[in-house]
């Protein structure tokens, strides 16, 4: 056998085939590639606006990579956060590039997410049978916005400090529980080291875990249902 077909992929490389056979004979992974979701082809009516979900996903991958790299030098303390960001930008080779990608990738991601949502909304694609996917999309939107909000504080500049003061003040307008939410978000009565630490934890652990799960569901549902045409 010198040709191997896995879903839509055709493999001719001997080494890859040998590797596949090694795994296949032990785990039996062929069934996975036989799944219907690997055979969906993109319909021909797709235009530029159908690409924004994918572009957002691409930007997200970029955020993971650049974010991990920034994490190597960033120091999440009130005394050193700003200095470490300046250090990354000015002293580390290509630090300006990595940080620039993370900064602009984040901004672009907000834009592409909203274009994606607009397309889905105005073409009525969220309707039956795709309501569940719309809901995961909403969760993803909230997660993306939380990423922006928590990430904004991390450089610990005047701008990020006061933006967080204002941002955490907003939920206090909620009746009865508002002040508790504010207290919880800030980890105290005002913005301090505690706030920075919890925003950092949420930004690099909680949100990435959540977004990966929901992106997985989002994409699996698309593969299962196929891409909708305009109604």
């Amino acid at each position: 056998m010198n040709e191997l077909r896995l879903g839509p992929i055709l493999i001719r490389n001997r080494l890859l085939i040998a590797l596949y056979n090694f795994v296949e004979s032990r785990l039996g992974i062929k069934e996975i590639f036989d799944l219907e979701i690997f055979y969906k082809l993109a319909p021909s009516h797709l235009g530029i606006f159908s690409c924004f979900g994918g572009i957002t996903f691409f930007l997200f991958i970029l955020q993971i990579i650049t974010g991990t790299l920034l994490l190597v030098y960033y120091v999440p303390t009130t005394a050193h956060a700003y200095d470490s960001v300046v250090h990354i930008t000015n002293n580390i080779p290509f630090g300006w590039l990595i940080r620039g990608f993370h900064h602009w990738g984040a901004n672009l991601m907000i834009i592409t997410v909203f274009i994606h949502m607009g397309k889905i909304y105005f073409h009525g694609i969220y309707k039956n049978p795709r309501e569940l996917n719309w809901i995961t999309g909403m969760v993803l939107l909230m997660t993306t916005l939380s990423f922006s909000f928590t990430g904004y504080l991390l450089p610990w500049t005047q701008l990020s400090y006061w933006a967080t003061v204002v941002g955490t003040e907003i939920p206090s307008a909620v009746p009865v529980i508002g002040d508790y939410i504010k207290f919880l978000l800030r980890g105290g009565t005002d913005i301090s080291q505690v706030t920075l630490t919890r925003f950092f934890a949420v930004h690099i652990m909680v949100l990435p875990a959540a977004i990966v799960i929901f992106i997985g569901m989002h994409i699996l549902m698309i593969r299962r249902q196929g891409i909708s045409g305009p109604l």
Partner: protein
Amino acid sequence: MNRISEDIIKEEISGGSRRSFLNISILISSAVVLGGIIYPVLKFLFPTATTVGMGEIETFSMSINEIPVGSAKIVRYKNRPAIVIRLKEQEIYALSAICTHLGCIVKWQEDKKELFCPCHAGRFDLYGNVLGGPPPKPLSVYKAVVEEDRILIKEV
């Protein structure tokens, strides 16, 4: 053979080399793109003098009042720990604080006037010589001078 079939043969031959030309072009351009990504990332991760925080400073200076007579202090000289000992009012010694055995930081023992390594009980005198224990080599010694109320540390 007429012209048309000749053209077809030519087309087929050049078609083959066109394919390999395209394959090579794809290979080269992906290598360029990949290199353009990997190179900055490796540069970013690899420590340099500026990323470690400070360049090599040849002379280190500190206030003499930071060390009471009879005691010692660990300082950072040329990005590595050094121990500065103030034996008498104006008598200062400076040595590398990194034990030559397995790299622990040595301590000053005021009562014995010795440097002691807590890891495997290596002992050194104030000139870096090994007095006992496993260290194979003496500690490197620096030159310490007092100028007014400052201690200056230099390479000997």
